[in-house]
């Protein structure tokens, strides 16, 4: 970094981080967004988890005493509520499901006929739907009991119903479902933040400078245009990196608030962190220059914001497209597509796949974009029609 670039960089860093708007959008928002999501998800899911651990509240409609009624009454997972108007109770969710046992239930069971059980529930309510599934399982355990009894009466081993023994186990070293979520959200978040994290700074350093009318005196100092531009460029890059780190901190806080957000065992090795840092830095280097170029092209702050907002939307598309790509099977051609290649690398290292050929291809392409975008930015900054557009 030459002397003038250092002076510009130092001043811009100080100026940028004295700006409440930039601190809010580059540090505070990325830090609070994930804990907020985790908290809201946690609130919703903990309510459902609580519900699933409590006995299912049912209303029972039965003409006479029967074996199933006894079975349900004795089951600790069932709470039978007495109600005069079961439909009203179901509406209010005082009962989650109504179990209607058909006539002559025991008699029909004894004779090998099929007595009817109706489950009345509200399919617009998640709680009622969940209760219906739980009560189905409970009734199924009762019917299994009858099947076993019938087979034994016929002298048949009930084991006949289970011709194979299915045992499942995951080969994943760590993680499980948590890791799956982790590998979906983390690449998306890191890629987006490292690319767009510098936008607030870029807006202020280009269009903001024009609007304040500080660009003209700046261009008549001894510092040449390249040094000024580089000082500003490194500031935008660093702002992008700080925003990415802030979002990572937010991510960690989110996992503390609600461990089920990502799974407790989702961790990253040092090797993974180094590779992720490398590709994210490449993203920040590439996008910062293009953001700065757009900002310098804009006549004022507002215009820069209008031009820069599609950049975020542009990034969301590949990020969403690759959301469900498996880290163990990222197609080879993905590593030749901008943005998607960076997401691909992060997805791989999360599931401990370290393919250096992929890293090399991605880094190679990213270096091409960085060089290309920088050339465009330098050309733009040297163009009188861009700098003095207003």
């Amino acid at each position: 970094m030459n002397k003038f670039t250092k002076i510009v960089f130092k001043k811009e860093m100080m100026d940028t981080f004295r700006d409440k708007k930039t601190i809010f959008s580059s540090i505070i928002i990325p830090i609070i967004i994930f804990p907020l999501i985790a908290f809201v998800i946690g609130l919703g899911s903990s309510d459902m988890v609580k519900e699933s651990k409590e006995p299912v509240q049912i209303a029972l409609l039965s003409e006479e005493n029967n074996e199933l009624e006894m079975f349900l009454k004795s089951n600790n997972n069932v709470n039978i509520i007495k109600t005069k108007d079961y439909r009203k109770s179901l509406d209010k969710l005082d009962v989650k499901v109504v179990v209607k046992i058909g006539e002559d239930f025991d008699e029909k069971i004894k004779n090998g006929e099929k007595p009817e059980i109706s489950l009345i529930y509200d399919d617009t309510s998640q709680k009622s739907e969940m209760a219906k599934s739980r009560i189905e399982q409970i009734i199924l355990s009762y019917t299994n009991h009858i099947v076993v009894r019938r087979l034994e009466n016929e002298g048949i081993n009930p084991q006949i119903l289970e011709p194979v023994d299915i045992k499942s186990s995951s080969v994943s070293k760590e993680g499980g479902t948590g890791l799956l979520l982790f590998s979906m959200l983390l690449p998306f978040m890191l890629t987006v933040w490292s690319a767009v994290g510098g936008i607030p700074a870029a807006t202020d350093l280009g269009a903001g400078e024009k609007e304040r009318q500080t660009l003209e005196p700046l261009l008549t100092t001894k510092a040449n245009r390249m040094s000024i531009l580089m000082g500003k460029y490194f500031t935008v890059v660093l702002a992008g990196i700080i925003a990415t780190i802030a979002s990572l901190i937010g991510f960690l806080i989110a996992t503390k608030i609600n461990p089920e957000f990502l799974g407790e065992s989702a961790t990253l090795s040092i090797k993974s962190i180094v590779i992720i840092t490398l590709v994210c830095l490449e993203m920040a280097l590439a996008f910062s220059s293009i953001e700065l170029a757009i900002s310098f092209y804009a006549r004022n702050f507002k215009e820069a914001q209008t031009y820069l907002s599609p950049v975020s939307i542009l990034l969301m598309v590949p990020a969403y497209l690759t959301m469900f790509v498996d880290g163990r099977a990222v197609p080879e051609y993905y590593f030749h597509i901008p943005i998607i290649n960076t997401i691909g690398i992060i997805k791989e290292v999360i599931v401990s796949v370290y393919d250096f050929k992929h890293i090399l291809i991605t880094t190679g392409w990213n270096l091409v974009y960085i060089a290309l975008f920088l050339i465009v930015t330098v050309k733009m900054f040297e163009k009188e029609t861009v700098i003095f557009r207003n």
Partner: protein
Amino acid sequence: MIEVNSLSKHFKDVVAVDNISFKVEEGKVFGLLGENGAGKTTTLRMLATMLKPTTGTANIGGYDLIQEPADVRGEIGILFGGETGLYDRLSARENIEYFGLLNGMTKEDINIQIEKLSHSLEMKDYVERRVGKFSKGMKQKVALARSIVHNPSIMFFDEPTSGLDVTAVRIVHKFIKELKSEGKTIIFSSHSMNEVEKLCDEVGIIHKGKMIEVSTLEGLKEKFKEENLEEIFISLVGEKNE
């Protein structure tokens, strides 16, 4: 000294400045007088190396505008527009220091200059405060200090009093007079006859990109047999408009 030779600037089909030449002796104040859009700002932007001339060149403080733009920049200080152009989140000192550093000064020299300038511009009380909440007059003083911190021998002022109140205008006028007494060479653009009459030794009247008259104030008055500069200007520009 400033010597402008056949300077032109074209923006696509528009000729903003058309083959102008003039000379400003050392220690003199040259007033560039013209209507809005006459080409004053474009001329000053070219002289300040911000815009590349389409044709022609200038010698500024002994350096060629085209061949040695970096050296030219070391010799000049600028104040463009009535709006001050400062960084609101930096203190007055930080604003001035930034431009001093970018002009190759050491921190020690900058501190000596800030001390001197904050005394002469009476801004000692607020030099350490952030400029965001300053009044227009206070900001104007900081901008003046910023433009002169590196002690340039040549100053360019482009309509430095437009949009300012009476107090701020007086600050600028006083400052320009002080610079003149220190022997600095100044080009001052304005569309106010009164201002030009008050401050300038020589006047160049620019109209539709062309320099239509260059003379001392006395020379103009004698040539047009008219004491009122405004009348002279109208008769010159009016003639060209017809």
